[in-house]
């Protein structure tokens, strides 16, 4: 695995393939997560009050849920197996840890979801009201538990904990399941992702309902949906902001390079300023084009330190500081990346020597090289980098994605507050700007969601597993033409299916709910 560096083409196309399937998959997942909860709430309202308009609303949104759910399932399959097909070295290197959450997701969540989704869709006249309601709640529980496990796995890649490297098998092995499940990264990743998914779903419901308002049809249904989704959305976006804050604090500590890239921060320090907006441009005076100079920047003094540590004078390292070595706010000193690369190479060589010594039954050599290996293992992945600058992610992409995500998040706060206020006063339809804003926010919610993942995933490059395994080592050795072929095969298929999905969705929305009271 860890020996041959494969060609850039293969790595790039494998990354593109994974990114493409992940982007497509995540177009459908957040709506499933949040809409399932809103369906369960609507159906509960029907069972509790007997008000048939809640039943009609439930059935209408359930249809849209079904259309969205099918394609989410389809794209999810590829994502799961792609860990093996395109990242086989990764699959072995961390399979002992990463496989477990994936299997638990299957055993506990997927069966729950798929069994009860059948009852939810087809059980209206076959099972009792209560059993049906329980099934709808179970679909919500299944979908969200599923999100938990895959996000635990993702969080582990961002912040590997609860494991030890076994030099005999050449892989990381789990030694503390609870540390993996309850790592601060896992908690903030899960809570931030699901609450943002709820926000997206609320935007979807408010936006689609606004269309009915603008068309002056199904008004009672639309008002009810807007009321419910606005309350749900407002709570969700507040929680999203809160969990986003925890997530930022976690990234500051565990992935300082990602944090610096999010800010385009070259030189950090105490009381670092937050850049509200700016234009990252090339500057010949910087050592590499991967670092950018921030033009036309608007700063808020000391705010970055506050975001990172809730302390206006906390130390935040910039990209150059990380390259040169620095002492973190918590007092840990990190050597320069040149040094970490040297440590990594020492670890790689020690591992090879160790394996050879074991083969030759040279216990003394094996013991001594194992010590060297263990002492340098935390920098293992750096040994595969060709230059310290390889450790810098794509700054403009991460910088802009972060700002788009946060900016749109603020817009959603405004949307839900305004829509709730006017819906409550029954004046929603009188101010046309509000339904138009709600419609505008539907695609924006998807953009915000994708930007969040770009920050998380592009921001951690070059790492597949933070500090331990870079992308180019994780990839499956295969002729890049095959990967290019499968990339286009799935890109074309998913694009066709997305267009079909949208067309079906629009048709269903135009049809509206069955009865309008």
């Amino acid at each position, binding site marked *: *695995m860890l020996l041959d560096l494969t060609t850039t083409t293969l790595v790039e196309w494998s990354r593109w393939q994974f990114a493409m399937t992940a982007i497509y998959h995540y177009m459908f997942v957040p709506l499933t997560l949040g809409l399932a909860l809103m369906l369960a709430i609507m159906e509960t309202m029907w069972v509790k009050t007997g008000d048939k308009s809640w039943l009609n609303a439930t059935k209408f949104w*359930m*249809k849209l849920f*079904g*259309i969205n759910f*099918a394609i989410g399932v*389809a794209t999810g*399959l*590829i994502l*799961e197996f792609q*860990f*093996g*097909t395109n990242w*086989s*070295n990764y*699959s*072995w290197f961390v*399979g*002992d840890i*990463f*496989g*477990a959450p*994936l299997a*638990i*997701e*299957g*055993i506990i969540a*997927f*069966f729950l979801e*798929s*069994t*009860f*989704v*059948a*009852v939810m*869709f*087809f059980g*209206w*006249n*076959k*099972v009792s009201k209560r059993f049906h309601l329980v099934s709808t709640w179970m679909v919500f529980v299944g979908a969200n538990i599923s999100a938990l496990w895959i996000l635990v796995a993702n969080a582990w890649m961002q912040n590997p904990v609860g494991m030890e490297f*076994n030099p005999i*098998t*050449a*892989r990381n092995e789990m*030694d503390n399941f609870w540390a993996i499940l309850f790592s601060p990264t896992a908690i903030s990743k899960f809570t931030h992702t699901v609450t943002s998914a709820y926000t997206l779903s609320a935007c979807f419901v408010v936006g689609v309902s606004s269309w009915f308002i603008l068309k002056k049809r199904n008004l009672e249904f639309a008002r009810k949906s807007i009321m419910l989704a606005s309350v749900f959305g407002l709570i969700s976006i507040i929680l999203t902001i809160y969990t986003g804050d925890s997530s930022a604090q976690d990234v500051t500590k565990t992935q300082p390079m990602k944090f610096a890239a999010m800010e385009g921060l070259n030189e950090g320090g105490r009381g670092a300023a937050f850049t509200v907006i700016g234009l990252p441009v090339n500057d010949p005076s910087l050592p590499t084009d991967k670092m950018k100079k921030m033009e036309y920047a608007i700063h808020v003094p000391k705010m970055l330190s506050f975001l990172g540590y809730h302390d206006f004078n906390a130390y935040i390292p910039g990209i150059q500081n990380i390259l040169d070595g620095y002492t973190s706010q918590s007092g840990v000193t990190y050597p320069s990346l040149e040094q970490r690369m040297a440590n990594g190479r020492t670890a790689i060589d020690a591992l090879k020597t160790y394996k050879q010594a074991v083969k030759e039954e040279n216990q003394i050599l094996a013991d001594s090289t194992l010590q060297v290996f263990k002492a340098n293992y935390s920098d293992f992945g750096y040994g595969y980098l060709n230059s310290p600058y390889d450790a810098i992610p794509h700054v403009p992409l991460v910088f802009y994605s972060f700002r788009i995500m946060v900016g749109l998040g603020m817009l959603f706060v405004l949307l839900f507050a305004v829509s709730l206020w006017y819906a409550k006063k029954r004046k929603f339809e009188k101010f046309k700007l509000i339904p138009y804003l709600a419609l505008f926010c539907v695609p924006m919610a998807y953009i915000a969601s994708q930007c969040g993942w770009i920050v998380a995933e592009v921001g951690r490059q070059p790492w597949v597993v933070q500090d331990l395994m870079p992308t180019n080592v994780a990839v*499956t*050795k*295969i002729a890049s033409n*095959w990967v290019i072929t*499968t990339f286009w095969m*799935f890109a074309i*298929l998913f694009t*066709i299916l997305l267009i*079909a999905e949208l*067309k*079906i969705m*629009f*048709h269903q929305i135009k049809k509206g709910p*069955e009865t309008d009271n």
Partner: protein
Amino acid sequence: MEFLQHYWWILISLLGGLLVFLLFVQGGQTLLYTIAKTEDERNVLVNSLGRKWEFTFTTLVVFGGAFFASFPLFYSTSFGGAYLAWMVVLFCFVIQAVSYEYRRKAGNLLGERTYNVFLIINGVIGTICIGAVVGSFFTGNPFQLGEMNDVNWMSPWRGIEVLFNFANICLGLAIFFLARTLASLYFMNNIKHNAIYERSKKQVLYNSVPFVILLLVFLGIILTSKGYAIMEDKSIQLVQYKYFYNLLEMPLNTLILLIGVVGVLFGIIKSIIKPHWRKGIWFSGTGIVLAVIALFIVAGFNNTAFYPSYTDLNSSLTIYNASSSYYTLKTMAYVSLVSPLVIAYIFYAWRALNKKQIDIQDVQDDHHAY
């Protein structure tokens, strides 16, 4: 540790058995234009299968996830190595996943017929490819593992070469005809429609004969050829009649295999000869789960390499060298204890949904019909 490795191989075998049984959904998809003669009949077949497709899909996903968690070296070696074979399988399942939901929805872009064709492609290629890949558990694959357990696939065909082997093709086709047989039994059980019942009965006969013949040919080949044995010094060597010896040396497993085969045949034969009998799917279904479990045990137990390499014998995967660590297997074993609960609620929910057979009227009245 060995106990856990065996335990997990049995669980994988169980999932494999359930998956093969549930492939009746795929088999049914290939019969859409054979058993159904009108649009209404076709819709009732699709909706009958449509209440189950996701369960097959989920089982496939869990099969992959459980393999990843318990035998990650198989996951990295097979999926990364036999890249194209798996990609074809995945492609077939992706097009299936949307087809039920989209086929009759207004604005579906491609038209109902295209989605029906997607279902047929999934049914034909999905079953044959999965069968052929499982065949290679006995016939071997061309790979070599590096010093760090990295896979070097020795064939430029990246997995497609499993189709170049006669025994693999036999198993692939056997699974295809089995899936069609089980689907016919399922239709007989699940759909209230005389013509569909009679046509399904005919299909049970037409498909079970090639299934039995092809399976016997496959078994004949692997039981009489060399198998991949783990020797005392942990090396892998080819041993004549290895799989046959496995049957002799694991009599309980052989008994399970026989009970499974009898169950399958009983369900088929009684369905063909006894008028109005609808329970064949339960006998054949249970039988096939048992038979597949027994075949997986033959592939992986009794010091046998379950994913052998014919280009480098000592790179072959065994349940010992491919498994997760003790800690992970133990943790996962605790998680697996929820399985009875999972099976219980699946059974309960299905029973609630399937109390009554489905008919054309049901499909027309159902607002969520496919």
